[in-house]
C-alpha cells in the first residue's frame, strides 16, 4: 500500500470522537501514521494548555491507528477492544498543534502492546507518552449488530 493509500485508509477509520476532537492524519512516516490535533477551546484545560484528557484522546487514537495499520499489513480483520492505557504527562502541552505516533511493540494473536508518544515543536522532547494493551477479537464477536 502506498503512503497516500495508507493516509486515506487511516483517515477513513478515525472514529467519530477523534473527528469531533479535531484529530486528523498529519503524515505517514516509515509506513506508520502520525496524527495531529490543533489547539483550540475544545481541547483546553488550564488557560493556553491542553487538557490531559484531550492529550490522552490523541494518544489512544494514535495507538489504535498504528495497530490498525499493522493488522491490515498482516491481512487480519479484527475488532479492537481496549484493555487499559497508562498515560505519562511529561510537560504541559501548550497552545500549538500536538502530534502523536504509536508503535506496536508486540502483536500477538489475541492482544497487542502499543507505545505512543506525543510531541509539539521538538520531536525529541515528548509532552506525553502512553502504553496501551488492546484485545483483538474476531470481527463478528460481540458486535451485537
Amino acid at each position, binding site marked *: 500500500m502506498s503512503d497516500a493509500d495508507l493516509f486515506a485508509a487511516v483517515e477513513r477509520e478515525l*472514529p*467519530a*470522537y477523534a473527528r469531533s476532537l479535531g484529530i486528523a492524519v498529519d503524515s505517514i512516516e516509515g509506513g506508520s501514521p502520525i496524527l495531529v490535533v490543533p489547539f483550540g477551546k*475544545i481541547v483546553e484545560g488550564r488557560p493556553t494548555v491542553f*487538557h*490531559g*484528557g484531550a492529550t490522552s484522546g490523541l494518544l489512544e487514537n494514535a495507538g489504535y491507528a498504528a495497530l490498525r495499520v499493522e493488522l491490515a499489513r498482516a491481512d487480519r480483520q479484527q475488532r479492537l477492544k481496549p484493555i487499559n492505557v497508562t*498515560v505519562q*504527562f511529561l510537560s504541559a502541552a501548550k497552545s500549538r498543534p500536538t502530534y502523536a505516533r504509536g508503535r506496536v511493540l508486540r502483536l500477538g494473536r489475541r492482544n497487542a502492546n502499543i507505545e505512543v508518544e506525543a510531541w509539539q515543536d521538538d520531536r525529541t522532547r515528548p509532552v506525553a507518552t502512553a502504553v496501551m494493551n488492546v484485545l483483538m477479537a474476531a470481527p463478528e464477536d460481540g458486535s451485537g449488530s
Partner: protein
Amino acid sequence: MASDLPPFDPATAATFMLQHGHPGWLGMRYVAHGADWVELALPWREDLVGETGSGILATGPIVSLMDMASGMAIWTATSEFLAIATLDLRVDYMRPARKGAAVNGRSECYRRTRSAAFVRGIAHDGDPDDPVAHVAGVFMSIGGRRDERR
C-alpha cells in the same frame, strides 16, 4: 495554611469550571462529592462514540472525565484550589459502557504528600458495583507553591 479564599467547593466550582474548554465541550456535569471524592457525569453523545455505529462512548472522554473528577477530588480534599498537573493516569477498561448510556466518574484522593496527590476511582454507567473502568493516578502541585507557603 491561611488563605483569603473560601474553601474549595466542587458544587460551586463546577458551575464555572465545567462550562469552558475541554470539560465544557464534553458537557461534564457535577453529581456529588464527599470529603475527599467528587463524582461527575458525562452525558452520552453520538459524536463521542469510539467506533462508528456502536453507540458506545469512546474511551478518550472517559479518561477526560476521570482526570477532571480526580483534580476536583484533590482540591476538595485539600480545600484549596492550587495549581496541579496530572503526572500519570492509568485506566483499566472492565467492559464497554452500555449503548447510549451516560458515564459517571467518581474519584477519591486517598493520599497526599507535600507535592504529590494519589487518586483512584471508577467510571460506571448506572451501577457503581459494576464499573466500566478502574482508574489510578498521581498528580503533582505545580511550582512548589505549597512549600513556599508551608
